[in-house]
């Protein structure tokens, strides 16, 4: 089995799809963010980033967690409707600045961790990339 198939088996997921960039994407209906992070770190995967995207009004956000496993990109997309998602900072330190950045740009709370200002200053309000703020 290749590394991606091993991840699928460990997370009990039925395979994955490959996009035009060559990245493997797993369906996330049956897994949580922390379960994903724990499995991937155990497999030796390197956390790359979270790409946050604001969905049309009222639909929340799409958070894409991107990992590298032996040079292969692996992605997990989670829909966030209540502006909250568990932090994975305690599982992989690499997520620290990324979670703080997403919090400041989109006002999403990563629960279970403390925040300090990163890109913004202490008196700035999180959510600087939100579309309604920009209008």
């Amino acid at each position, binding site marked *: 089995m290749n590394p991606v198939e091993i991840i699928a088996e460990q997370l009990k997921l039925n395979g994955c799809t490959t*996009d*035009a*960039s060559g*990245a493997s994407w797993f369906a996330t209906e049956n897994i949580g963010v922390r379960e994903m992070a724990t499995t991937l770190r155990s497999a*030796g995967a*390197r*956390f*790359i*980033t979270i*790409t*946050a*995207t604001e969905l049309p009004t009222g639909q929340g956000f799409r958070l*894409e967690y*991107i990992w*590298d496993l*032996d*040079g*292969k*990109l692996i*992605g997990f997309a989670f829909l966030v409707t209540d502006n909250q998602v568990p932090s994975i900072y305690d599982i*992989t*330190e*690499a997520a*620290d*600045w*990324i979670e703080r950045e997403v919090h400041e*740009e989109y006002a999403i709370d990563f629960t279970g961790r403390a925040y*300090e*200002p*990163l*890109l*913004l*200053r202490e008196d700035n309000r999180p959510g*600087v*990339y939100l579309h309604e703020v*920009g209008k």
Partner: protein
Amino acid sequence: MSYKMPMGPYHPGLEEPYKLEMTCEGETISDAQLHIGFNFRGIENLAEGRNHVQVIALMERVCGICSFIHTLTLCQAMETLTGLTPPPRARYIRVIMAELERLHSHVLWAGIAAKLMGFKTMFMACFQYREQVMDMLEAISGNRVNYSMNRPGGVNRDIPDPEAILRMVNALEGEIARVLVPVFTSSVTARSRCAGIGVLTQEKAASCGVVGPNARASGIAQDLRRAAPYAAYEEMEFEVPVESAGDVRARLMVRALEMLQSCGILRQALTKLPAGEYHCNESKIVFKTGTAMSRVEAPRGEVFYSVTWKENSRTPSRVHVRTPTYVNMPAVRWMVQGARIADAPLIQASIDPCYSCTDR
């Protein structure tokens, strides 16, 4: 009794704003907190209001040193979304520009590291080598920075006389091999100033997701040119220098050896430069709906782009950039723990930080 000592955000040793707040006991640093964002520009947000030509010019300004790498990564993502395939000559020109940029970045870093070591003669020598690399970049692109070389489907300028560039590369390689590499790999000054300080263990490097020469100096062998080849790297033969000590000296060694590898790659690419077109002759670029990811091994490590576009839209819906310094810099906290205060500037410089990338 412990006390706090700030370094930055404005400091003679750091030309860009960044703050390292150190907790010290006597002369020893027991912990440190990093503060960035003093020049946060919101470039990702700005990109959502730019068309595909404007967004290339915008992302080129994420970083003044690896501006070519940023547009290369962006254009590769755009090529996935448009279906454009760069011709072989363009892929080779991209390798040549990327390796010149790596040389430029590593030589610049070597000069700054030499200055922080108190080795000012070496600083002067490094900046002389840097000028030679800048001359080559200018000869190819017409610019010393922000080269405007990349476009979806190829590059904007050809290299009509690769022999001339090859002669410049050969001359520079001789200088680097004769002066720079021996000084950084075997001089007593470099060893006494760098060995055993600022150690980042392999385990910590993996946990922090550290990339590029910093990861390779801590025993993590990944290099995207080898692990996930792009442009024409699959056709190049080169070694990936790896050290295991994880200290400042290991980071120095990896970069010094990488300079010679870059010269070797340049020689191959310039010698084998295929004939033909250097960009697609598309009359109009049409984006498909979707998200494309792309990554490139920049001088400081992996640059990652995620680009989302909707069909018939003039502007992207989302452009996300993860720069290498963004994951390398938090590791400075672990590197300075237990170090002397006097070593802190050199340790933080040893990761080759780019504050412009970090505050994109």
